[in-house]
């Protein structure tokens, strides 16, 4: 009998646990440890942030779904991992602390044969003074943040309806933040909603980003086939912002936010400000902050995790200059470097380096996006990690027949604006691979045949289709496994 423990019920962890429970039903135990009682389809939080969906439309309760799957669900937070066990346990275990009402505060050591760390990112609002929904800016990173953002957005709309001008600032809230795509989608939706109410003459819209050029999106930009040209995403992105009436500030590292004012430094080393009435800024991400201990109970956190708390896996972490970065540096099995039965899936794994060129201001401030890991690669990684563990459990051989490197995997980014069969539109961008491979594709860094950058209602239909399709899949309804990640 094998015992597989998955930490985190986000897209990657939930995908992993779905496949594990499907294949390891008899004589095996699959355990999910997650502090959240709900699964949320994060891409649709944008619609919650502009009132087009309610939180109930983007989330569902995990407990009944895991009961149906036969998964032992513990609503708890992982505190530390002990891969070698300790004086009492010969097996590796995870120390967890319960969050659920009935067991709140109770601690338990959960032993495992295989562990998947899919704890996702910690939203590090504290890294930027004044940032976050409890302070001066909004967020759409969770459904409750998005709901809060919608209430604040409504306040601004009400003021505009009375003739008052409003300034909206959306973008990255830290010099090294990522997830520009989500913020970009949000500002387009804000612009759409303001226009729908015929209030654009009272709106001053600003995009603020740590990208060197717009369209970088943390993946060093891309080239897309568009209207008979191979076009850099810079042109694509600037064109969309201009069309929606949005001004932009690039190469900006936000350092502090006070009521109505954002302080930032740019790559020229200048310290500048931008006033606002409504701001939604994405925070920096770190790992979940788990500790790791060896059999003697000595702290080995730095052996298992990198400094920001993300887990070291089968990547090449040798520090090297940007010019020497290679697609081969990226991991493909997500197995821990130190422990063979431990894996990190989704955002929990530490990338070997960025994709965007590191930039620094004359004052020494690093200002550039860190690598993104969106839902699609997170789901695929969760799936292949589960498949490799299933294979190991069934055959006793750890062969890693399934691989998924972000340097070989493609992704689609759908930036939707508006809502409805005929009123909604979206910009669809596909890239393959996600990490540019300049050795294999010396001209464009990626397979140009697989890239596309189009705007239209078809993209919006795709986003709606994915919303319903992936929630269906996540609820483990009949034939869910036929739906690809």
């Amino acid at each position, binding site marked *: 009998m094998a015992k597989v423990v998955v930490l985190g019920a986000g897209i990657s962890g939930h995908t992993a646990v779905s496949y594990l429970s499907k294949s390891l039903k008899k004589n095996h135990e699959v355990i999910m440890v997650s502090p959240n009682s709900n699964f949320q389809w994060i891409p649709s939080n944008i619609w919650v942030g502009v009132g087009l969906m309610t939180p109930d439309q983007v989330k569902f309760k995990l407990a009944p779904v895991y009961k149906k799957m036969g998964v032992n669900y513990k609503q708890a937070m992982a505190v530390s991992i002990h891969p070698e066990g300790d004086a009492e346990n010969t097996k590796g275990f995870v120390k967890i602390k319960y969050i659920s009402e009935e067991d709140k505060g109770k601690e338990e050591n959960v032993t495992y044969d295989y562990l998947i760390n899919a704890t996702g990112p910690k939203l590090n609002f504290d890294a930027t003074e004044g940032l976050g929904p409890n302070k001066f800016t909004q967020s759409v990173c969770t459904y409750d943040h998005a709901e809060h953002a919608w209430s604040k957005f409504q306040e601004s709309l009400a003021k505009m309806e009375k003739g008052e001008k409003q300034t909206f600032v959306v973008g990255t809230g830290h010099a090294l933040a990522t997830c520009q795509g989500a913020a970009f989608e949000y500002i387009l939706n804000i612009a759409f909603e303001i226009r729908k109410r015929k209030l654009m003459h009272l709106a001053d819209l600003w995009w603020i980003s740590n990208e060197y050029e717009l369209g970088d999106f943390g993946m060093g930009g891309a080239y897309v086939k568009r209207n008979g040209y191979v076009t850099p995403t810079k042109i694509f992105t600037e064109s969309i912002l201009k069309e929606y009436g949005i001004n932009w500030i690039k190469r900006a590292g936000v350092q502090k936010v006070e009521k109505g004012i954002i302080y930032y430094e740019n790559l020229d080393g200048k310290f500048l400000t931008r006033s606002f009435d409504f701001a939604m800024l994405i925070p920096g991400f770190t790992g979940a902050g788990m500790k790791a201990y060896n059999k003697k109970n000595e702290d080995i956190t730095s052996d298992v995790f990198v400094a920001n708390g993300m887990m070291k896996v089968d990547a090449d972490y040798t520090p090297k200059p940007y010019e020497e970065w290679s697609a081969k540096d990226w991991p493909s099995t997500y197995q821990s470097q130190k422990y063979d039965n431990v894996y990190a899936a989704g955002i929990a794994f530490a990338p070997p380096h960025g994709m965007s060129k590191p930039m620094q201001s004359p004052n020494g401030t690093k200002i550039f996006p860190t690598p993104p890991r969106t839902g699609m690669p997170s789901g695929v990684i969760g799936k292949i990690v589960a498949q490799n563990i299933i294979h190991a459990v069934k055959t006793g051989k750890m062969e890693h027949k399934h691989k998924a490197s972000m340097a070989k995997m493609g992704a689609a980014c759908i930036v939707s604006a508006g809502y409805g069969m005929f009123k909604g*539109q979206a910009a669809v961008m596909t890239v393959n691979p996600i990490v540019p491979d300049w050795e294999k594709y010396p001209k464009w860094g990626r397979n140009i045949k697989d890239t596309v950058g189009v705007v239209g209602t078809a993209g919006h239909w795709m986003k709606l289709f994915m919303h319903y399709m992936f929630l269906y899949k996540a609820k483990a309804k009949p034939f869910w496994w036929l739906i690809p*990640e």
Partner: protein
Amino acid sequence: MSKNIDKTIPYSNNSFATEPTRMVKFLRVCFLYQVYNFFKLNLKVMRIVVGGHS
């Protein structure tokens, strides 16, 4: 979409950005063309996702 940003200030950010023509805007909402695009894009994404891992 918006008229409230001055696109004509020389050397401003916005002055360098491209804008869609009326034909492009029409095609973006042309039902038949978008139905074709919907299937084409879904197939492309499916091929990329399935082919990206073993």
